[in-house]
């Protein structure tokens, strides 16, 4: 099927994810889904729609607003042989249950000397939605910093299902970060639809996608910022600057090879990140590239959320969030400097 006529282009990522989950649950009865409002409502962003109707309350369960209890329950259930897919409604709520994620799920395989594994997926919605400081964060680096968690963040709607399949089939705990704007946007209107023609194919974790080729600079990014960067790239192209855009797809594992070989080719790396600037993904990717390519003296820059809580009012929000215009400006500065 050619991309242009693919009916999946009419769907948004939440619909695509729920279909992937449904198919995978049909194949594997170890999968159980927990979370707030995942049942009758099908998730506040719709990514578990239809699941309870199809699989019943036994497998798809609305939980009380008890994140500590249900993430802990998922850890125990995973160690006892199930494959829980847990929804944390907004990533911002991780504060109330982080212990079970980073002290238990992330560490139990290591601490047990390999005796146990914790194959659970923590799906959670991230990113900007006009909901201010406690409902707009990405926090990807927070998870990526903690050893033992795989951290996946689709940057295109079509990659969501394939990445989710790999996350579910992984023996390790995976934090799966779904950007709200991707969840809600029709795939056909995305700058890049991702693997929309291969929705049932798992996408291996740790394989970045070069979603645009160009020779003047590399923009490495993930999540919604992939779409923003693609838009910036088309603006830059009008000025004769060709950006290569690398969608990391997973922060852990990190596809160092794609990142460094692109940066080696272009000689310039701009990291765009909707997460906070300091001690974050941007610094990390730049360190990786500089360590690996120090002989090439790559030129580097980062464009991320400045170190402030995300404000509520639109003009304030726009002042801090990377957008295509600010990304293009950052790219121009790097290329023209």
């Amino acid at each position, binding site marked *: 099927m050619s991309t242009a006529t693919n009916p999946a282009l009419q769907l948004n990522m939440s619909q695509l994810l729920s279909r992937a989950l449904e198919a995978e649950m049909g194949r594997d009865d170890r999968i*159980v889904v927990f979370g707030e409002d995942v049942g009758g409502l099908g998730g506040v962003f719709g990514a578990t729609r239809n699941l309870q109707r199809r699989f019943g309350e*036994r*497998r798809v*369960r609305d*939980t*009380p607003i*008890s994140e*500590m*209890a*249900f*993430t*802990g*329950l*998922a*850890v*125990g*259930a*995973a*160690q*006892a*042989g*199930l494959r*829980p897919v847990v929804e944390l409604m907004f990533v911002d709520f991780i504060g109330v249950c982080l*212990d*079970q994620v980073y*002290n*238990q799920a992330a*560490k*139990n*395989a*290591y*601490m*047990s*000397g*390999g*005796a*146990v*594994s914790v194959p659970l997926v923590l799906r959670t919605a991230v990113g900007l939605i006009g909901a201010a400081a406690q409902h707009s964060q990405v926090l990807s680096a927070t998870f990526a910093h903690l*050893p*033992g968690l*795989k951290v996946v963040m689709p940057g295109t709607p079509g990659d969501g299902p394939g990445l989710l399949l790999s996350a579910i089939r992984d*023996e*390790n705990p995976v934090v799966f970060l779904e950007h709200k704007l991707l969840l809600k946007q029709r795939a056909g209107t995305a700058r890049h639809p991702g693997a929309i023609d291969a929705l049932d194919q798992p996408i291996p974790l740790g394989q970045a996608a070069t979603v645009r080729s160009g020779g003047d600079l590399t923009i490495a990014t993930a999540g919604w910022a992939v779409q923003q960067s693609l838009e910036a790239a088309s603006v830059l192209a009008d000025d004769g600057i060709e950006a290569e855009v690398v969608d990391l797809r997973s922060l852990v594992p990190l596809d160092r090879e794609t990142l460094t070989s692109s940066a080696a080719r272009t000689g310039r790396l701009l990291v765009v990140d909707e997460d906070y600037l300091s001690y974050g993904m941007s610094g990390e990717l730049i360190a990786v590239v500089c360590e690996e390519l120090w002989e090439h003296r790559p030129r580097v820059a980062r464009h991320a959320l400045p170190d402030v809580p995300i404000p509520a009012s639109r003009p304030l929000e726009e002042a801090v969030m990377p957008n295509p215009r600010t990304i293009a400006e950052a790219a121009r500065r790097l290329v023209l400097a």
Partner: protein
Amino acid sequence: MLDLEVAYRSMVRMRAVEEAVQLGVISGEIHGEMHVGIGQEAIAAGIEPLLTDDDAVVSTHRPHLHALVHRVNPVAMLAELFERDGGLCHGKGGHMHLFSPDRDFMCTGIVGASVPIALGYAFARHYRERAGLAVAVLGDGAANIGAFAESLNLAALWRLPVVFLCEDNGYGISVARDAATAGAIERRGEPYGIPGRRVDGTDVTAVYDAAEQAFGQARAGQPALLVCDCYRWSGHYEGDTDHYRAQAEKDAAMTAERDPIQRLRARLIAGRANEDELTEAEAAERARVAEWVAEARAKPSPNPADALSGVFV
């Protein structure tokens, strides 16, 4: 059925294991923080006859006794405690993070974190319609963490086969229970419809009788809460100066009548058990533990290079 002589032997083994561990701390073979359960043996011994191969136990930072009664391989456990390779976790877990998936036993060093994880083991049984329950062990201090309240609600709501087993040794490190805990822990399940009881945790029969009921309920899908009174005979950790507990209090609490082992011994003798035979049994159990310890200590040290592997499976 609770066989008092079997329970006696079991408690003697527990004590011997903990004493060996204390020596390991003194000798420096165990360099980390170490929490032992001396004085709390009757609780583990009281649930021992009720635990089956189908059950899971999720314990705390004071886990050794629960591991022993859930029949975790004792040599493998001791090897882990003595920081050797070839034990439960190859030196990567240590005494607060023991994992024995063949027994569905684990423990955690985060106070209260054992409770929701136990719910997960219970859920897996419930989901698979398999026999078995999960025991969530917690201390009195852990009863004040939010995860406990959340878990009581969730267990009741989903009718999970779980027993909340609270070992109330009167302290969370240095803070006395009454300085940290409002109301009665055994009543904290009531609003959720979870019946609770408090028993004398130094009396193995009292523990067993109450646990029999609690386990029976949990196996029928009605979570249960059991609080066992005991006293922590050692410091919070080995090396704790323990100056915060008044000597008079310790003297009053740590008597032969309140020592679960001596108490049971006196009862067995009053019930016309042969004293010499008991002494022999005790020596035999201690010898057995000494063999375990020797076997564990003979295992090699871990290879430092292994520290970097195994983050992901």
